[in-house]
């Protein structure tokens, strides 16, 4: 094996009572692509933040290139040739690419010289690694794929030999992700070391040389990628066997439950986000809407669930129209049997400062079951919450706990339990497993399929192609506010990826 670029020996880190990293040992070979996988909260990001000097380990030793290193601030890490591309980009949105690249690494007290130097340096990096980006572009006007490239350039400009990427593909289209992987391979060929943090096992298999698995703050295994399988990694991550693709029978589609016709929706800026869309959902089927985030899916969901006004078009629920002119009221839709699990559970689905049991009835709080005269029937609410906690395996099983203290997956289960247990005829779900762990994903998928098998109509919107393909009986692809194609669940990822990128659509238009 190649000489180690980084060695971590006995790293421990606690945040209060939470032990984020326990006794971590890890060796990363020079010139390799090393993957680190684990569920949310397994301690991957904490470990990398320690390596980047963002946090300091409580105990343990870091060696860089065989030499013991003391990394107290990001500056120390940068000086040792460690660069990091964060999950949430660390860019100043209204600065230019060049300004972002030099920030903190200015060669001179005056900007003019620093920028001139950076400009020629960027040209060199562009030639060497194929990292093209307009140096004078404003960050917020660039697509996310390019913004990420700026982050990589930032690290390389600072002379990074070791590049850490934290969940780099979460925001990318499949094509952008492929491009990123090509760049990473090129970096590796030039002798750089790449550390890739992700929870997507497919990516690990596709690009890494070595993979380490973390679970609950510990390093459970390190494998050569060529000698392991997705199934083994998933099992190591979760600690038990996981079904990556849920089993489901044939759909028995019945009557049309929800009919969307010529729906057009504008966002707050007045831009048309949903452009003349029509589709039906029948009882007993799951319809999936695939698409890169920002192509109108969110606005579509909001319009159907009564949160946002539509400009024109109609939506029929059980053959009766929904008033789209603005008088629509999510409460009325709920009474008519349309339940909505919003994309953004933190802002729309939950009040994080409330106790779990309060959130478990939110929106259904005037149901007589939860009332005693004009007052809330606290006992009934809590008992009801306890039932849901048992049924949906929400952990910790404490209905008095503040909702903010549950993990993302468990918060999502709280919302799902609330909406599903109302026995709705139509269930609309946005990003059912965003920020949810592998184990909980399996559970949520099973539940959604159970809903379908009970004869409910289910609409799933997700940016995760795997999820759409695994759940849906029919797949609709959205691009630029329109539905650009309908495919069966057997559609290949490449086929859907092209549709999502609008390629087939554009060719047809030309």
């Amino acid at each position: 094996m190649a000489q180690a670029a980084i060695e971590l020996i006995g790293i421990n880190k606690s945040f209060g009572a939470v032990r984020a990293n326990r006794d971590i040992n890890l060796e990363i070979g020079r010139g390799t692509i090393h993957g680190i996988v684990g569920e949310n909260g397994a301690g991957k990001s904490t470990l990398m933040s320690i390596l980047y000097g963002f946090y300091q380990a409580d105990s343990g030793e870091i060696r860089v290139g065989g030499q013991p290193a003391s990394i107290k601030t990001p500056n120390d890490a940068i000086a040792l040739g460690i660069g990091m591309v964060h999950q949430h980009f660390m860019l100043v949105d209204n600065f230019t690419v060049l300004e972002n690249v030099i920030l903190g690494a200015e060669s001179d007290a005056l900007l003019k010289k620093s920028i001139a130097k950076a400009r020629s340096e960027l040209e060199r990096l562009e030639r060497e690694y194929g990292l093209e980006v307009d140096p004078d572009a404003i960050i917020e006007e660039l697509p996310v794929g390019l913004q990420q490239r700026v982050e990589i350039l930032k690290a390389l400009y600072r002379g990074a030999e070791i590049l850490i990427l934290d969940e780099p593909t979460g925001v990318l289209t499949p094509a952008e992700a492929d491009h990123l992987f090509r760049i990473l391979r090129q970096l590796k060929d030039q002798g750089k070391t790449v550390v890739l943090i992700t929870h997507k096992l497919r990516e690990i298999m596709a690009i890494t040389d070595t993979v380490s698995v973390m679970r609950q703050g510990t390093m459970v295994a390190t494998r050569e990628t060529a000698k392991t399988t997705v199934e083994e990694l998933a099992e190591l991550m979760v600690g038990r066997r996981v079904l990556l693709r849920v089993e489901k029978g044939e759909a028995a589609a019945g009557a049309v439950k929800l009919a969307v016709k010529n729906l057009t929706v504008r966002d707050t800026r007045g831009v048309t986000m949903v452009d003349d869309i029509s589709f039906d959902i029948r009882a007993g089927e799951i319809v999936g809407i695939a698409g890169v985030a920002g192509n109108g899916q969110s606005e579509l969901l909001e319009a159907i669930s009564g949160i946002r006004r539509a400009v024109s078009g109609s939506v029929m629920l059980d053959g009766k129209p929904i008033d789209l002119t603005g008088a629509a009221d999510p409460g009325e839709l709920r009474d008519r049997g349309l339940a909505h699990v919003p994309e953004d559970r933190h802002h729309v689905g939950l009040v994080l400062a409330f106790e779990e049991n309060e959130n478990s009835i939110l929106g259904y709080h005037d149901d007589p079951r939860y009332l005693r005269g004009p007052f809330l029937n606290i006992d009934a609410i809590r008992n009801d919450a306890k039932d849901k906690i048992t049924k949906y395996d929400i952990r910790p099983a404490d209905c008095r706990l503040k909702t903010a203290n549950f993990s993302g997956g468990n918060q999502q289960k709280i919302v799902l339990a609330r909406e599903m247990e109302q026995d709705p005829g139509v269930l609309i779900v946005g990003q059912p497993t965003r920020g949810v762990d592998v184990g909980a994903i399996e559970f949520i998928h099973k539940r959604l399929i159970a809903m379908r098998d009970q004869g409910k109509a289910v609409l799933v919107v997700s940016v995760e192609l795997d999820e759409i393909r695994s759940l849906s009986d029919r797949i609709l692809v959205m691009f630029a506010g329109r539905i650009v194609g309908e495919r069966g669940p057997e559609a290949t990822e490449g086929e859907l990826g092209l549709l999502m990128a609008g390629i087939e659509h554009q060719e047809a238009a030309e």
Partner: protein
Amino acid sequence: MDVFNAIIQTLDSTIRLSVPLLLACLAGLYSERAGIFDIGLEGKMLVGAFAGAAAASVFHSAFLGLGMAILISVAFAMIHGFASITHRGNQIVSGVAINFIAAGSTIILGQAWFQQGGRTPALQPGERFEAITLPGAEAIRDVPIIGPIYAELLSGHSILVYLAFLMVPFTWWVLFRTRFGLRLRAVGENPAAVDTAGISVAWLRYRALICTGILTGIAGAYLSMVQNGGFVKDMTAGKGYIALAALIFAKWKPVNAMFACLLFGFLDAASIRLQGSPLPIIGKVPAQFMQALPYILTVILLAGFIGKAIPPRAGGVPYVKER
């Protein structure tokens, strides 16, 4: 010629009246661009005014007065920093507290030290900043048009007036042409980006507040040592708040800030000038209305006529590392 003279005189007092606004507005620009809301400009000006007049009167030196004004004002800025940067307190609460402390402490200390009902002793020549006559002002005074503009409008101000207007291009240069300025703007937009780039967010914000303190100190010194011959209680009279309004109006840009402050200064000058004199068509307007006019206009301008003002994105939010 009377009308011309009236205009020149009004513009002259426009300049005089906009100087404290301009200095305070630029002071606020440094801190708000760095992501620290500073509603305490008012208080810092007030302590600056008091410290300046008190020191000038005791040490018989205008420059010692100015130095003391800056020192005390910076000290108050550091209190704001300690509360809102180091301890991540609410910036509005901290700013309001500074205003209260300033209003109270200047009166109490003034009374204890000078026994003149909270005033400082009237400043003698040499203890104040005197007007500077620009070269050639007297020679061309009698040239029509140009003469009065040069001699009345441009010449004959104190050094602090020229300093205030020089601060406009200087601030622009610092903000947009230097490394410090780049970092300062970055920390107001996305402190996490600054932190991960290996720069200390706290130290950067403290430095921004030092700039703020220096400028509010000069603004205060101008009030008590140029505009007035000593400190009078509550002499800032809301200028710190008007400066904040001007800052929003200027969309946090130095040159815009100058024009915004000149506009507010002009309204102030016009209201003084027009008091008691009948306006065409409208007739005689109550003095109270003319005094209120700048404030009424501020509200109207801010409510609808400036378009979308996008503040620095991280403004008002204490920086906490994730988790």
